[in-house]
């Protein structure tokens, strides 16, 4: 690495937390928290607080996963391996020699946004480090026959194999489900990708997000209508590909349950990012079937609920939600404290009296213009405090620096930092699986290329140093 680049790559200490993490005494201060509530919350903390997590067993502690998700930039397999790893599975991530292409990704390709290995100076992108939690990292060249033979041997020791290569690639290589299930009938084999491995619109090699939301109507329905200057818009994050990872984890465990309780055999699963989104595209399909409607873009408002939208306020954008009567009147009561004339205008409006009459476009415009007229004088935090007083769900659009410093998230360990062996201290989002007996947990983040080669190949395949050296020299690992 050049001297310039060395300077460019940040070695600054972690900037987090800027404000201290709140303590138990502060959170449950008797002046702000009634006795009964403190009792219930303390019980929850006893069951669920992540400070107890490392002392508890892991739900998938006996499961070994081979994650072959690193042939390109499709990220579903990497994401899925992360969730299974959080739940305790031994996830062995198989990367091509030299490392996964996903390691090289950084916003705008900027090396200074990457993380430097403090031993050999290699750079690794933030997404990879964040998502490859709890995984062992091995390298193997699957494009070579000899490498594939090694994968077959690894598969005999695995419960699950997850891959996202081009459709039919593994099958053509002789390491698809048809071949591996002969070697290990108990293997649960998952293929994941954007649109599918069969069908008229199946994945082309190299196809990645946002192909999936474009093919389902999702991108077309996100964003503002053209009349407001809007266009279709993709999600900032790789939304479908990420949440398809949730389903890979889901399907894998379901297949393991069936294997261990009933059949003793594995099976073949297919999870696609696009179908994940088709499945969750709320009322779009029922609505289309009923009267042929094609769900249009409606910006930051919701076609089915009024009020349930994001609108500008003094220092940003503010979400307010209250679909049914109880919340509706509380919202206008809050507004009425500052602007009684707005409250009167809404409550006197005959077309806004009944819940189901309020969702027409004209009614939404009337409602949200009045609401925004009140919000424009207040900041996100002021609006939120006023609305929370009446127990209305509300919150500002929060940027990541604010997310990282939100006391609630810090207290719950949602946002936390970990000391990694090679990349220094890294800020990350904790596991979502809070649990009484088997919580998900993050023990380590992404590791350097081939970090566990020796451990895995020795333990599972009895390769000795001479053999490992031979493989290195041949460029197989």
């Amino acid at each position: 690495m050049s001297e310039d680049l060395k300077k460019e790559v940040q070695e600054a200490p972690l900037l987090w937390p800027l404000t201290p993490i709140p303590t138990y005494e502060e959170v449950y201060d008797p002046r702000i928290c009634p006795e009964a509530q403190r009792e219930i919350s303390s019980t929850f903390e006893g069951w669920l607080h992540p400070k107890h997590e490392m002392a508890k067993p892991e739900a998938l502690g006996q499961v070994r996963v081979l994650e072959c998700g690193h042939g390109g930039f499709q990220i579903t397999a990497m994401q899925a391996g992360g969730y299974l790893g959080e739940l305790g599975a031994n996830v062995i991530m198989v990367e091509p020699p030299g490392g996964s292409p996903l390691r090289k990704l950084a916003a705008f390709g900027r090396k200074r946004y990457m993380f430097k290995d403090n031993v050999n100076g290699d750079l690794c992108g933030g997404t990879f480090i964040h998502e490859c939690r709890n995984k062992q990292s091995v390298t193997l060249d699957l494009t070579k026959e000899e490498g594939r033979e090694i994968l077959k041997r690894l598969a005999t020791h695995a419960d699950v194999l997850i891959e996202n290569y081009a459709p039919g690639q593994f099958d053509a290589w002789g390491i698809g489900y048809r071949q591996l299930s002969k070697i290990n009938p108990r293997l649960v084999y998952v293929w994941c990708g954007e649109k599918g491995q069969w069908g008229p619109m199946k994945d082309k090699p190299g196809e990645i997000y946002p192909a999936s939301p474009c093919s389902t109507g999702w991108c077309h329905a996100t964003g503002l209508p053209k009349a407001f200057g809007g266009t279709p818009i993709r999600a900032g994050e790789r939304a479908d590909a990420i949440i398809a990872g949730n389903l890979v984890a889901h399907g894998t465990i379901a297949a393991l349950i069936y294997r261990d309780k009933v059949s003793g055999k594995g099976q073949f699963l297919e999870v696609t990012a696009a179908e994940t989104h088709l499945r969750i595209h709320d009322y779009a399909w029922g609505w289309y079937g009923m009267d042929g409607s094609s769900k249009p873009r409606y910006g930051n408002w919701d076609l089915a609920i009024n009020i349930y939208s994001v609108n500008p306020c003094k220092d940003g954008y503010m979400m307010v939600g209250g679909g049914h009567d109880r919340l509706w009147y509380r919202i206008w009561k809050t507004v009425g404290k500052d602007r009684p004339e707005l409250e009167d205008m809404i409550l006197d409006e005959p077309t806004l009296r009944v819940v189901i009459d309020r969702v027409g476009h004209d009614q939404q415009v009337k409602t949200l213009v009045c609401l925004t007229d009140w919000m424009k004088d207040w900041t996100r935090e002021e609006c939120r405090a006023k609305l929370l007083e009446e127990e209305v769900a509300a919150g500002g659009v929060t940027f990541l620096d604010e997310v990282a410093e939100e006391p609630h998230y810090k207290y719950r360990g949602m946002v936390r930092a970990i000391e990694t062996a090679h990349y220094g201290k890294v800020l990350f989002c904790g596991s979502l699986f809070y649990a009484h007996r088997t919580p998900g947990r993050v023990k380590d983040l992404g590791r350097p290329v081939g970090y566990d080669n020796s451990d895995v190949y020795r333990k599972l395949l009895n390769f000795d140093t001479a053999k490992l050296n031979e493989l290195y020299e041949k460029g197989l690992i």
Partner: protein
Amino acid sequence: MTEHLDKLPFEEYCQTIFNKDALFDKPEALKGYRGLSCTQYILGPCAAAYLAELGAETIKIEVPRLGEPMRHCSPYNETWFYPVSRWNPGRGTSPAFQGANHNEYFVTLDYRKPEAKEIFYGLVQKSDFMVWNYRPGTFDRWKIGYGACKEVNPRIVLAWCGGFGGFGPGRNWASYDILGQAKGGVFSFTGHRAGAAAGFPSKHTTWIMDYSVGMLVSTGVLAGLFWRDTVSNLGNYFECSQVQGSTRYTEYGLPLWGRTGIVRMRWGNWDTEICVNGICKCGLSSYPHSDHPAEKEEGYICVTAYTDEDFAKLINLIGRLDLAKKYATHDDRVEARAQEEIYPAIEEFLKDKTKEEANRVFNQAGIISQPLLTVMEAANNEHWLQRGALGWYDDPYYGDVFTQNVIYKMSETPPRMKYVHRPVGCDNEEIYQRVCGLSLDTIRELEAKEVI
């Protein structure tokens, strides 16, 4: 049988084992499991519905008569599935309800009534899992929370899900899907850049945080059941916070902020990490005479050409050889200023094309592209219909319904959709008789008292 499959070409092999018409010839993964869904809106209901699709007998408990609020939120208030319940034939259920409630049994119970407690404990005793998403502490106050349930049935796997979680400074904050998107972070970096037309944060059109965190809640339940049945024989209690899902999906956002103090921001329809991989505007509309504004407008197409080879093809096609020299490597192309030059050049090339023409041209040149389908086009797309992702379904209650189908495909124990949903309290007799052993007389009596 398998020998025959071994000889098939791969695509035919997949068509055979994932055949949507053979789903009902195969066993179900979760047969024999029973679960309760004490849920409303989307987050909790969908978590239980994913398990119902896999074959678990899932009993959804709603408020007597009107049912849960999600039944009553319909786009523009124009589509309804009648009736909402036998007590209320004049009202209907919204299509928004159907994505999150497949295959369930629908019973009613008013938890607050004294008679309800015993019935509820009876159900808990005979169940393997339970999902609920009332505000934290509500069920505990009614003495039907985890503390009480694990006394009744130590093997039950419970999952509570909600906005911010049951402890911590924000334990009382209510949440909705869109609030999760906003407070967790993904909202802030979706949308066009500040200063661009319509350049402000943008909502994901689906209730994505509810549905996707529901998947994780459901995954938690499965993990709990797996651990119970293969290791410990013990129940479990999971808690999932929906807002955290939104933070979990921010990719490099948190590490970047922690290391450099740089906040991930919006980058419109382009990719921050990969170039070329973005959505470009075509000059022409595919439906210039449509009266639907979202169809009448210009088409859009997603272009993917990030390898050097594909980028060279793209540059040749659009005739901007100067860019090939200027941005020879991926590191050069992905820089912000390079993207600002490359994408407008592509849009210039697409100025006189519809999205279909553009797609044809890109395909001929060997470049990966995907036109942006409207909801209507996706609903009629051969790919999704063949794969069974979407389809018409003859529902016993609601007639012909067009609906999303199952969550994923499995070769041996595929999830399947048996019916979209049912009216409120439709299975009161079935469940309370078969599972709880109540007589019809008792059920009628309880109904009269509005306990069920």
